[in-house]
């Protein structure tokens, strides 16, 4: 561990300067030697101390997360403390850890205080929404959703509210541009699923038998679970992208809905001959799309708001 002694600018808590100038054994010249030593020590230590720097990336993260007003003053304070007190007292490695800790505290605590309540509510709402979805999935042992009429109320309300964001053909075009990216990702996920089904022989009989047993969880069949999880993440991503790009929460919800419907239509066409298949696929897309997209859209709205607050 590197330990350096740095003469500070007055915190009075630094270590003793290591100076090559010493008083004579009989004490003569001790005052002037001490004065010279102090000057020498202070000068060299100050030169040395300005060579000491906290991790560059941590400082970049800190600068980025602080509002312009505090960027120079706060990073300057931390740098001063780091060079004058922390490195001499604790050594370089521990000083780096100290700096990271302070950065984390500033990013979390100060950022929170700089954010207005609106951004904070959106972020909290988004996290709570995801927590509810995860809780529902855990309680249902990650089984694919069985759509009951009451489960349609919330997505229907979300779609109705989100549709009010469409005012012109330009809005439609904007949504199409966003949704097609996420539809492509959904197609890719579905393709990978088909590909993995070809490589890994999935025992459907075993799966249905396991479903009938108590204690069944979709997690016991990772290839199925991974596909479901990737679909969920993609739809959340669509909601996030839509809300971020358009600066409108409702358009984020619509982007996720559009992506889900765009992937559902080909399946709808394939399953057209089956009695219940087509309608179920469309309803499922209309439920899952906006439900998951809402989580992403809330997070994007919150982060956008936070960014605007912090830019002040």
């Amino acid at each position, binding site marked *: 561990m590197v330990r350096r002694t740095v003469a500070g600018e007055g915190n009075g808590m630094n270590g003793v300067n290591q100076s090559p100038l010493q008083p004579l054994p009989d004490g003569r010249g001790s005052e002037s030697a001490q004065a010279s030593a102090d000057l020498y020590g202070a000068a060299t230590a*100050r030169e040395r101390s300005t060579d000491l720097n906290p991790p560059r990336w941590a400082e970049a993260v800190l600068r980025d997360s602080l509002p312009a007003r505090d960027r120079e003053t706060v990073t300057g304070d931390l740098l001063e403390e780091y060079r004058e007190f922390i490195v001499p007292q604790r050594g370089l490695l521990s000083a780096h850890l100290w700096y990271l800790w302070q950065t984390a505290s500033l990013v979390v605590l100060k950022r929170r205080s700089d954010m207005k309540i609106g951004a904070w509510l959106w972020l909290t709402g988004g996290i709570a929404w995801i927590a509810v979805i995860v809780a529902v999935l855990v309680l249902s042992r990650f089984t694919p959703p069985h759509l009951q009429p009451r489960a349609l109320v919330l997505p229907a309300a979300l779609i109705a509210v989100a549709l009010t964001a469409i005012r012109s053909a330009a809005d439609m075009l904007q949504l199409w541009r966003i949704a097609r990216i996420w539809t492509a990702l959904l197609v890719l996920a579905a393709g990978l699923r088909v590909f993995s089904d070809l490589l890994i022989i999935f025992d459907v009989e075993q799966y249905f038998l396991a479903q009938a047993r108590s204690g069944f969880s979709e997690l016991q069949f990772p290839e199925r679970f991974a596909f479901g999880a990737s679909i969920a993440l993609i739809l959340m991503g669509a909601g996030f992208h839509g809300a971020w790009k358009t600066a409108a929460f409702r358009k984020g919800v619509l982007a996720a809905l559009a992506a889900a419907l765009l992937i559902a239509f080909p399946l709808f066409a394939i399953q057209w001959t089956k009695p219940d298949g087509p309608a179920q696929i469309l309803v499922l897309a209309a439920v899952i799309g906006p439900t998951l997209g809402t989580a992403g859209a809330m997070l994007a709205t919150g982060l956008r708001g936070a960014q605007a607050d912090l830019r002040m």
Partner: protein
Amino acid sequence: MADILGNFEQAVLLSLLQPSTEIGKQGYGRAVLKEVQARLGRSVSAGAVYATLDRLEAKGFISSRTEPGTPVRDNRPRRYYKVERAGVRALHEAKVATERLWSGVRLPAKGMA
């Protein structure tokens, strides 16, 4: 009645009003951090102190000004804080509220509760 100051807000205001350490007397961000640490007798994160300073400034209890920095901080400016009249009043109210809360209370001897 205005908000009663929290303990940490009181510590920050008192650190600015009557600093007990040499560095604390300088009154800039880092000095406040060190003074609060000395006053509370424990390590305090920079985030907590700066967030509190921001909040107190937004409430009008303190004001700040920047001045040029020194080479040890790569010449980055320092922000100096000063307690305003409203801050002193808020501290006084907090003290009165605490005294009122404790008036007439006699705790049992240590270990007897």
